């Protein structure tokens, strides 16, 4: 049993940076929503007005789900915190399970473990125990965040449980895809598809009035149906519990039977040579990343269409000027018109496409940590050409993502008769590029200076900057600290016009840090895992 405990501990320790970052994020979001609501809507009259104008708004439901009570702080927090955190929780659960169950295996280390005294079942359970410990940490962090926001302990614990139920189900989904898929990458890809379907089902259920029953088909919907703070239905907990148990049972059975290092669906190990896209490292990067790039494209595209379709539901008729100002402080900008809503959602696209830039540098670092760069740079390939090519590919793909978001949001909007012009939405798309290129530059600098911490620094910077933009004002932070977030300087196109001087400043800083990163990368040692 000692071996199992050691393995579980290692599985938990492997993800400690990610676990801690998510725990802090969960606690902060829980705290900020509670404090922000009390602060922004101190009186019942204001809360009623807010509920009237926003409770029925579909574009807001897209992200947060259906609100059941917007007049009390508990109901509001359950809606906002439950809605956002369950999405994060799903992604966390999936990544944590795939990391624990498959990354080790693909690196060949699982053979060492199984050559020892642990059985397949024992190793499977121990790896998942590490994930479960991480989930418990997230539950605790959320609960503490809510308590710090002066919410009642009991219902807070239940809300935290609703959030964590999603991450447990998706960890179980991760466990299953790890058994099915031939490689770690594909396991993650298939898991992300399941997540995307679950999210889409919830969004359709919450926004298309007649299809509410679809909520029962999605683990994200189950978390909503638990209704923390608004007439808890704790029997719903049986659904995630049963789903998790079933998924884990099946996964465990397969794990006991399959060959280590392959899945139930094994990919063919032999193939006739395909010689396209082998002419340069950049071409090969495009070749090997095309699955991932397609995933990003489809994901951004689908959400752009949904955002476009729903933009029309914003109606300024019954929103007072004072409420608009308060909304602005809540980070919702001028959410009260279709173009205001689109402007806000395009800021979210700017955030997502910035994350895409981070993912590209993270992939570049992966090439180095796997020591393939040693093979590459023993050939007549210059470091500048390699990194420059990768960055150019990242920037070009980010541009495609931005424009696709613009075009599809426009298509969605005009299909509903919303007044939207294509040039405006293309501009909204292009407006995502300055922050993206800024973060691409910052990530490049991180990769050059602290290669082992590339992903942590890159994702950390983008997430902190975005959260600070959303929540900093709610906490009453001084204006100059808010200005530190680049997202503060992104114009809310199409509601506002592009902030050109700020955009140029971001592009300049981005270009300068990219150049500095390239120069430093040319001068440093290659550093393995």
């Amino acid at each position: 049993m000692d071996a199992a405990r050691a393995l579980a501990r290692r599985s938990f320790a492997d993800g400690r940076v990610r676990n801690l970052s998510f725990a802090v994020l969960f606690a902060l979001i829980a705290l900020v929503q509670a404090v922000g609501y009390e602060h922004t809507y101190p009186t019942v009259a204001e809360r009623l007005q807010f509920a009237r104008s926003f409770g029925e708004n579909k574009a807001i439901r897209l992200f947060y789900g259906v609100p059941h009570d917007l007049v009390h702080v508990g109901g509001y927090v359950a809606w906002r915190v439950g809605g956002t955190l369950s999405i994060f929780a799903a992604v966390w659960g999936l990544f944590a399970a795939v990391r624990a169950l498959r990354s080790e295996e693909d690196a060949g280390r699982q053979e060492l473990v199984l050559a020892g005294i642990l059985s397949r079942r024992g190793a499977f359970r121990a790896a998942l125990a590490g994930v479960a410990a991480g989930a418990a940490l997230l539950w605790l962090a959320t609960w503490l965040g809510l308590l710090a926001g002066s919410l009642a302990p009991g219902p807070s614990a239940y809300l935290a449980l609703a959030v964590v139920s999603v991450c447990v189900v998706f960890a179980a989904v991760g466990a299953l895809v790890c058994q099915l898929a031939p490689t770690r990458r594909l396991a993650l890809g298939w898991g992300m598809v399941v997540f995307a379907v679950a999210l889409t089902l919830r969004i359709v259920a919450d926004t298309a009035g007649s299809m509410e029953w679809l909520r029962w088909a999605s683990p994200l919907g189950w978390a909503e149906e638990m209704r923390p703070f608004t007439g808890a239905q704790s029997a719903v907990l049986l659904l995630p519990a049963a789903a998790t148990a079933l998924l884990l049972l099946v996964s465990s059975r397969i794990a006991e039977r399959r060959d280590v290092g392959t899945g139930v669906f094994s990919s063919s190990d032999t193939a006739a040579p395909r010689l396209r896209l082998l002419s340069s490292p950049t071409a090969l990067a495009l070749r090997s990343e095309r699955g991932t790039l397609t995933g990003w494209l489809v994901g951004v595209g689908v959400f752009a269409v949904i955002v476009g379709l729903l933009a029309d539901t914003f109606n300024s008729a019954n929103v007072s000027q004072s409420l608009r100002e308060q909304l602005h402080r809540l980070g919702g900008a001028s959410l009260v018109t279709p173009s205001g809503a689109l402007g806000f959602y395009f800021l979210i696209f700017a955030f997502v496409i910035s994350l895409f830039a981070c993912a590209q540098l993270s992939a570049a670092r992966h090439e180095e940590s796997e020591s393939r760069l040693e093979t590459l740079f023993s050939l007549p390939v210059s470091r500048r050409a390699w990194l420059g090519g990768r960055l150019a590919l990242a920037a070009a793909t980010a541009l495609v993502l931005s424009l696709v978001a613009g075009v599809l949001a426009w298509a969605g909007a005009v299909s509903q008769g919303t007044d939207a012009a294509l040039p405006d939405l293309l501009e909204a798309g292009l407006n995502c590029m300055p922050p993206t290129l800024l973060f691409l530059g910052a990530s490049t600098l991180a990769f050059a200076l602290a290669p082992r911490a590339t992903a942590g620094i890159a994702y950390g910077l983008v997430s902190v900057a975005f959260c600070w933009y959303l929540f900093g004002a709610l906490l009453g932070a001084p204006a100059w600290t808010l200005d530190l977030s680049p997202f503060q300087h992104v114009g809310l196109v199409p509601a506002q016009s592009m902030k050109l001087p700020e955009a140029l400043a971001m592009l300049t800083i981005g270009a300068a840090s990219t150049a500095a990163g390239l120069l430093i990368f040319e001068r440093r040692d290659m550093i393995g895992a």
Partner: protein
Amino acid sequence: MSTSRSKNVIRAEGLTKRYGNTLALDGLNLEIGTGEVYGFLGPNGAGKTTTIRLLLGLHRPTSGRASLFDLDAWRAPVAAHRRVAYVAGEPFLWPALTGAETFEYLARLHGGADVAYRGTLVERFKLDADKRVRALSKGNRQKVQLIAALASRADLLILDEPTSGLDPLMEVAFRESVHEAKERGQTVFLSSHILSEVEALCDRVGILSAGRLVDEGTLAELRHLSASTVEVTFEGAAPQLPELDGVRLAPVGENALRFEVGGSLRPLLAILAKQPVVAMTSREPSLEEIFLHHYDHSSDGRS
């Protein structure tokens, strides 16, 4: 013998590399000429791979310099690498590509390959080139790297323990291929643990220990500097002999003695001439003995 070669393919002057507090390479000097097959020996952690990383410009020297074809290894790596092919000790390749796709990719990056010879090598090493790299064993990945490097017909082959993971049959194929490279006038820098391989292939050998080159020369030169072994059997019990400079003595049995002789055999023979000697054998030290000799002397310094 090889010091008179005109052109330096590899040159290192006072090459030093420090990682934090660890001195991985300490003032290495190397000169390797065109067409030479140079064996680079050393225990684990002696600095062999560090040397290669510095030669390839993957890491930056703390002091000193390295050059390939008179091009600075750190400042002008791309120009130098047009004439170099490298086989890493661990095969780091692209898991999703097949062997054939890997050959194509590496050849395009290198600027061409001898496709006919590559076919010969694929046959010789019995590689299934349609298999994806991720499905290949370590030995087979090593073959992919080796074939790509050999087929590039590069002027300089830098091989870092190229046969680790290869079976004895493939070892034979490897030696054959290195002989072919040598016949074509290619220069080979072979870092290895396998002493018989180095003995069979190399013109010159350098022994690295704790980051320093402790010995270098042709095999004949190394043997000359090291002790030869003389075993003598006497009629009756072995006699008491006077101590001689440079001769170490070890009893073997009742009536036999073994001598490790550092320099000339003459003083020993002079003494033995007066003794009742029944049989005497003498042999040169193997490379293994030379290597172990240096290794013993350095292993107390660093682990």
